[in-house]
């Protein structure tokens, strides 16, 4: 396996203004060679190649190497892209399982919240009815049969409120 540290040093020592074509050609050969064997360190190799490309002098004699370097850079870019998307995909089943488990908890929490809102609505209803009863009670006289009947009917409604809770 190619030592990427050595390769990085070789590229670092290249000079855009003083480096000769042989030095650049050799460095590119070494980078290409490393590309065949260092699958796990694709990111490092990409960075080394990028430094190389940025240093490559603008000389016609190096044009074939420029094309080779560009092709290799695109290959490594696509390899990174495929590798990273593949990694995300590989973890997706596990992530989806967790999301589903979380959804179960969300449903339960929403169910709890709805139940509490039911309590609130029931309590509101009861409070409203109680207020009406209180108003009627204020008008109540011991002999007023009509009011007594109305009051009994309201109390029955109040009793029915309890059925909301057990729904």
């Amino acid at each position, binding site marked *: 396996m190619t030592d990427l540290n050595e390769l990085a040093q070789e590229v670092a020592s290249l000079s855009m203004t003083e480096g000769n074509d042989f030095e650049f050609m050799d460095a590119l050969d070494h980078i290409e060679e490393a590309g065949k064997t260092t699958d796990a360190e694709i990111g490092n190799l990409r960075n080394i190649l990028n430094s190389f490309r940025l240093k490559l002098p603008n000389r016609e004699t190096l044009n074939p190497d420029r094309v080779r370097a560009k092709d290799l850079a695109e290959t490594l870019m696509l390899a*990174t892209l*495929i590798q990273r998307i593949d*990694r995300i995909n590989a973890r997706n089943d596990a992530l989806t399982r967790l999301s589903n488990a979380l959804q179960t908890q969300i449903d339960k929490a929403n169910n709890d919240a709805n139940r509490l809102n039911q309590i609130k609505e029931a309590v509101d209803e009861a409070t409203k009815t109680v207020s009406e009863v209180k108003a009627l009670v204020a008008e109540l006289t011991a002999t007023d049969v009509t009011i007594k009947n109305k009051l009994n009917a309201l109390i029955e409604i109040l009793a029915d409120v309890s059925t909301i809770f057990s729904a």
Partner: protein
Amino acid sequence: MSKVKQSRLMTIVLIVSIFFTACSVPDISKFTDLSSEMTRGIRKGVKDTENLLKAASERDDLYSAETIEKIQTQLKNYQKAVKPTVAALDGLDAYLEALNALSQANKKSGENASAAVTSVANLVNAVTGFTVAGSTINIATGLLTLAEEFRTARDFKKRVTLAAEIVEGIRLERDETGKPLKDENGQLIFLRTCTDDASDQIIEASKRIRSIAEPVLKSLNKEQSKALKTLQPEKKWERLRSWGVLSDSDFKTITDKMIVIDNYSCGVIDFIKFNVQDLKQINEAVSQVMYTSAREKNRVVLGFYESILANDRRVQNELERILNFKALISIINQYVNDGAKERALKTKLTLKNTLDSIFILDSEIETAVMDRIRMCAADCGEMLRVLQTSTDRSSCDEECRRALEETLGRITRPQFDRSVSLIEAILDNRAKTLFEQNQRYLADLARIKPSYDSVNVELNAIKSKQNQLDVLLDSSLTALDAWAETHANLRIAVNTKKPLTASKLASKVREIWGIINPETD
């Protein structure tokens, strides 16, 4: 007090105590808002990565048709691959919204229950003497039953604890019988096993499962596929084995690999972080190649401009030395006129150093000056010797320095003036040429500057987008950590009835939005 009245009062007391217990749930509205802001920022990172791939796939000036086609394929794969990540972010929002709704409903129910209890108490007083007490008790019993059900089976604490295992990437420490263990304060003990190597190991295990499952799933008929869809994931493998399409050894491999994945107990937050780290790598790879290729495409403009700039800098450098030389002559003459011999001698040494610098920059001047001084012969005294003496640290020791000063001291004023006038004439001539060169370079620079600037605008835009996305993704990673920390605080707050703090998450969310909207930061 009658038994009926005592019973009513007891019921009311029970309702009040239950709803007051419910009021200990912390306020998580701030956490909910911050989480929503955080996930919005992370979604932007996911979308910007997609936009980067789209932009790359449209650069036919930078990539070959073949490469563009491959980028387009990967763009589709990316869009499909990040869907579960976006769904998980939606899940985090939905979870906190549900929890917040629960918290708010709980709080309001407590308040309303209190009001209702008062009303019911008033009613009890109002209807005293009427035969309707049984109805009142029914209401109280209904409330009591419901509140008890909520308290025992659907409480907030339980929701938070169960969700913590899913989102935070922790798991309860249990004894051999499966019972959760508690610490000395009676709190549940949580373990974190989602270690640094989890991502790679989960990928390896998932790939192994897929390599076995995919051909098996493809071999199923329509009825089998339909039947399988209704099952839980763990039941699917058993069903496939029962149909004889999954061998015992493959079933064992799959269940073993599932155990590997489950044993890490990584949470939703961990998985989103793993994915964000992959997005960072995608951004770096695509942006880097795009930048270098764009730079290479424009190498003529960039190279020409930078080359003129470098040459002009050299010309200006030499011109500056020549001007310095001329300035030193005036200073030396002044010292000589003032009788400051010592100072004049030292400045003459500076003059020699300045001339040596010019020689280094321009060998033509060195040759011309040496020739002219050599021809000047006795009229210039020992000036040739002075000029030929190297003042390098390595070649001129103490003795050499003393000898140089002595030689300079022996040069008479007429000899010095004669030498300097000859040198100055050469330098003036050179300065004229350099000045013309400088003017030409400046004119060239002005001419190609618009092209150069437009190339730089393009390059800077690529670089700036890359940096912005990189920083956004970095901040997303730390914000996700802060989210998990806040959720852990929520667990503690629920158990200790202390208020929930989310200041760290708030700071991370501000950081994310400062990156997305720098001008409003």
